[in-house]
């Protein structure tokens, strides 16, 4: 099982809070490595999250969740 975590977006403030803005992956979907999973935002900087591995994804956090870098947002089996 692979963890998908909220990324570091702001190098100057790695502890900054950001938003899980959009889930593109649906709960229980089969994803390929590199597939677009989500879009996250810290301040006005948006970032795409892609699947680190292939497998079935289980979503842990909801859209709109306010999170810090390292927070677990999904797992892929």
């Amino acid at each position, binding site marked *: 099982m692979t963890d998908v975590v909220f990324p570091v977006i702001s190098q100057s403030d790695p502890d900054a809070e950001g938003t899980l803005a*959009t889930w*593109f992956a649906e*709960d229980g979907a089969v994803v390929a490595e590199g597939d677009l999973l989500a*879009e*996250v935002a810290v301040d006005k900087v948006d970032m795409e999250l892609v699947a680190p591995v292939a497998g079935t994804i289980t*979503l842990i956090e909801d859209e709109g969740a306010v999170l810090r870098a390292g927070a677990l947002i999904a797992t892929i089996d």
Partner: protein
Amino acid sequence: MSIDTTQQPATQGDPAEQPAAAPATKRLNTAKAMVEAIAREMERDEDVFVLGEDVGAYGGIFSSTTGLLDRFGPERVMDTPISETGFIGAAIGAATEGMRPIVELMFVDFFGVCMDQIYNHMAKIHFESGGNVKVPMVLMTAVGGGYSDGAQHSQCLWGTFAHLPGMKVVVPSNPADAAGLMTAAIRDDNPVVFMFHKGIQGLPWMAKNKRSIGPVPTGDHVVEIGKAATARPGSDVTVVTLSLSVHHALDVAEELAADGTADVEVIDLRSIVPLDTEAIIESVTRTGHLVIVDEDYQSFGLSGEIAARIAEHDPTILKAPISRVAVPDVPIPYARPLEYTALPTPARIKEAIIGQVAPA
């Protein structure tokens, strides 16, 4: 879990004609769907290039060109000075020489500073030359309100562009159609005005409807310009609409189906020029009830045009007068309570539908 897994993809025409095996798709927001369509066409045809304000490193103010500069370089993704007449005119000239520019007018509201190039040149050169000169270009532009951007940054104005001969006008409501219509627009030898609502882009920094994320066919995907789609089949009331209002109409339709008030058919116009009159008439002939939802100004525009086409065809197909849910003839106000009174909200759409099916 709040994720909606009952996404309804927009159908292309009659639901009965859907292919048995759906093509492979991937879930994107409308902005990314547009960008991918542009990127595919830029790979396919080196005459396609993009220009506009902040389309390069910034990726477009509403994310219409994100990542294109990195992929294709500054010769093909060109940041321009604040000179709409200058750079839209330049796109026109390049198109007459056989290139296929995609030029962005950042907000449709800015058309005032460059409308001569658009309606007197881009739209008329083909006609004035007796068909001898083509202008194969896309003018893409962000439209729409609902996030308090005020009177000069919240308009839709598709009625204004549609009124003037010589340019096609397309208005997608969802990611798949945005990709398909962008591809069609780039390949079309005519000038096509591609109007995308900021509220359907699925941007992280603006409140979004769940349908701004949806499945987009991978591979070659074209939506024919001039064909509406049945976003939701129904039998009691026809709602003819476009752009963000399609999402609101679908939300209302689901609600009214759940409590048995009405079975609502939602027609997503997708194109205004050409307008799919046949699809509108076919639906209204079946239901006898028409609600037009149009985020443009009410008078002298799209909603009036649709009503006129019904009346010209056969007003007796109507069992009740037509309802129009549009922006009253006021500039879009800044204060949220006022803005949301002016916009064609789900509450106003619901009231209009209920008014159609209420006992006489």
